[in-house]
């Protein structure tokens, strides 16, 4: 039998709409509902991690003032804050939240290819979150091993949670990895097989390219975390010696011998580095679409942007040991990884130039999403430049495990992708809810967050240069730390508390605008991409009504000369509109 694509056999398949409340909003197989479930869960657990960071900052800024924060608590806070933010918030939100919502809508399909497995993936994610949060309440509390969970300390007494907390952490990660694999298979297969007629890969908006490549990275990299987690659990529970060397603990020699802690580091970072690109690539894709829509201009260099995403994705697998320069490994490895790290800076920089060139002479509308997108360019450039410092072995040696590293990764992972998350939520809010958010609140949210996060992280680099170490409960009296460093810590804490409170503006705006927001119409931003061309807003189950859309052009026909409007949606046939390629000259 000849193969008939999913888009072409749409009228032969029976479409069943869910009818009961439970099947529509709880056990839902609709990608939009699942996306919102992911988003709400991720944001909730993100708020928990935000609260943890506030407690950490209280301790760091005012070391002798809060006796209820003990060193044990502090290490548990930093570990859970890190793990939640990186994996349970950012990865889940970008891929589970934005991926689930946008993929079927942007490619013109009715839903994901495996809707039941999609639903399962969300509920397993929820289970993984519950297991993780439960670790706070078991004897010994949550693990305090740092989000990197390095053995031997992670499973030895002296580290908080070394009995039960670490086991629950690993269990939670294992469940998350299963959930993520299910989701990932969906995203990849749907993008490959369920695109509407005329939607070629090169007509997809960059949001999808970012999510697509990030998913592939995740599918290939998360097994490394799984491997290291399984082996560490066996070391703890059964007494194997994968990572545990011959070691004394609490005055007694343990049974383990011969294992290698560095092996764990290799496995962990083989996962860990692609993980940061799993967070960054969707952000890159989304911000490209925000910039071009709100500047009414096609993204500059679309093909290079696609190839840069592919190159960054591929290269991300060969840079991992730049997290291990101080681990005692062979210095020639350091040389190799420093080289690949600097190479990966090239496609990343190309993307930054293209974003700026997209804005150049664009008809820039400084809407709330646009503000966040421009804020991303600033903060990501900043954080990326400090990454180049750290990518060089010689410069990394004194800066390793100082606040310079903390400032760097917060800028590139904590500030810039989160600015994209906010910008994207504001941008798609009218699509998801049918209403507009309050613009004034949105602008206050942006400016206070943007300047606030600079107030937190810019001075932190200086602390790193001084040599102030990370993961210390308190600095105490040391000669190399002047009084001003302590004052700086106080100012960072106050800025952090301020920024934390400012996020309430966002929450308030999102919730109240659900009822009080102005009805938005079907395409308030006048965007070209398919998700804005659905017959209903918010889209109903099945997304497109009776007929699937047919795509005739790429996602960036903004301000095309000769057309009566400054945008041409992707499903407008070329008989009705000129194409950017028709303008005569080669541009």
């Amino acid at each position, binding site marked *: 039998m000849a193969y008939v694509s999913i888009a072409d056999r749409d009228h032969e398949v029976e479409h069943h709409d869910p009818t009961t409340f439970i099947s529509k909003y709880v056990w839902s197989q609709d990608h939009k509902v699942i996306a919102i479930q992911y988003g709400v869960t991720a944001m909730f657990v993100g708020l928990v991690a935000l609260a943890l960071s506030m407690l950490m900052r209280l301790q760091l800024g005012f070391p002798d003032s809060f006796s209820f924060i003990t060193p044990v608590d502090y290490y548990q806070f930093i570990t859970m804050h890190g793990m939640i933010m990186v994996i349970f918030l950012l990865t889940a939100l970008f891929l589970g939240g934005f991926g689930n919502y946008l993929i079927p809508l942007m490619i013109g399909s009715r839903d994901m*290819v495996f809707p039941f497995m999609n639903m399962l993936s969300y509920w397993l994610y929820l289970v993984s979150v519950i297991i993780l949060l439960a670790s706070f309440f078991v004897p010994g509390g949550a693990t305090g091993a740092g989000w990197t969970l390095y053995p031997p300390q992670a499973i030895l007494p002296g580290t908080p949670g070394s009995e039960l907390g670490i086991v629950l952490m690993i269990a939670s990660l294992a469940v998350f990895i299963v959930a993520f694999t299910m989701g990932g298979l969906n995203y990849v297969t749907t993008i490959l097989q369920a*695109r509407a007629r005329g939607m070629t890969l090169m*007509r997809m908006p960059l949001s999808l390219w970012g999510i697509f490549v990030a998913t592939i990275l995740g599918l*290939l990299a998360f097994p490394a975390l799984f491997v290291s987690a399984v082996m560490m659990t066996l070391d703890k529970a059964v007494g194997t010696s994968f990572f545990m060397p011959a070691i004394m603990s609490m005055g007694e020699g343990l049974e383990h011998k011969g*294992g290698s802690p560095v092996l764990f580091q290799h496995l962990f970072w*083989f996962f860990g580095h692609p993980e940061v690109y799993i967070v960054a690539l969707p952000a890159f894709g989304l911000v490209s679409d925000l910039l071009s829509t709100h500047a009414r201009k096609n993204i500059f260099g679309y093909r290079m942007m696609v190839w840069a995403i592919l190159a960054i994705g591929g290269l991300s697998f060969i840079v991992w040991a730049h997290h291990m320069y101080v681990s005692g490994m062979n210095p020639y490895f350091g040389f190799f990884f420093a080289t690949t790290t600097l190479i990966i800076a090239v496609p990343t920089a190309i993307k930054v130039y293209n974003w700026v060139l997209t804005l150049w002479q664009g008809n820039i509308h400084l809407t709330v999403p646009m503000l966040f997108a421009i804020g991303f360019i600033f903060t990501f450039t900043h954080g990326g430049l400090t990454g180049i410092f750290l990518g060089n072995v010689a410069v990394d040696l004194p800066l390793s495990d100082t606040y310079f590293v903390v400032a760097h990764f917060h800028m590139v992972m904590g500030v810039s992708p989160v600015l994209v998350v906010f910008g994207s939520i504001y941008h798609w809010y009218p699509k998801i809810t049918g209403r507009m958010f309050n613009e004034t609140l949105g602008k206050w949210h942006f400016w206070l967050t943007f300047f606030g996060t600079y107030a937190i992280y810019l001075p932190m680099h200086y602390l790193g240069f001084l040599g102030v170490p990370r993961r210390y409960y308190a600095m105490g009296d040391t000669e190399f730390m002047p009084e001003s460093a302590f004052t700086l810590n106080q100012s960072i804490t106050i800025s952090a508390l301020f920024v934390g409170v400012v996020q309430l503006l966002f929450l308030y705006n999102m919730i109240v605008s659900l009822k009080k927001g102005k009805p938005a119409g079907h395409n308030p931003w006048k965007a070209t991409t398919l998700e804005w061309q659905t017959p209903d807003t918010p889209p109903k189950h099945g997304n497109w009504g009776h007929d699937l859309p047919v795509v005739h*052009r790429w996602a960036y026909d903004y301000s095309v000369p000769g057309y009566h409007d400054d945008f041409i949606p992707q499903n407008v046939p070329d008989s009705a509109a000129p194409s950017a390629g028709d303008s005569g000259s080669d541009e």
Partner: protein
Amino acid sequence: MATVIGWLLRQTLNAEPWNANDPLENEPGRGVLETDPAKIGLLSFLAVVTSLFALFLSAYMMRMSLGDWRPLTEPNLLWANSAVLILASFAFQLTRGAANRGQLLTVKAGLVAGGVCTALFLLGQLVAWQQLAANGYILSGNPATSFFYLLTALHGLHLLGGMWVWGRTTLRIFAGADTESVRLSVELCTVYWHYLLLVWIGLFGLLLST
């Protein structure tokens, strides 16, 4: 990965997406893989599984290079188990052909044979474990032993997962379904079983030689 990158490059290299009349982009069926989505899903999953085993194997090689490694002598039963697994793959391959040709009885027989052989393999693995443990080679012993248990357990668990799909397919066909409705499932099972056989051959070979 090279195949994927190569295909992606061909889809993207000469395209001019800004030109709505680009002949390359307007080719009918451009970029559509003529394969059932379930098969693409399975192949993507197999990429994940390959990553998993490859990483365990690199951990194995790294650990092997540290001083305290004592190579393990594998129980001879593993040779018999391997033969049984090959029979299982064979049975699935026959079933797949029969499903394509609509031969109901052969499909039923083939599925049962495949399932029985796999169950025998899994039981055989458990017996091999028992033999090792009885001789004092336990999980927390020498790293070579630990890895033996770990790698065979992983492979066995993946087979067990496959048995779940096999179980549903077999129940369907014995409940009266026709060969056409199980054709896809049988095809997917066959690919999966052949894949796990290849993994087993690789694992067994590595364990034997180290």
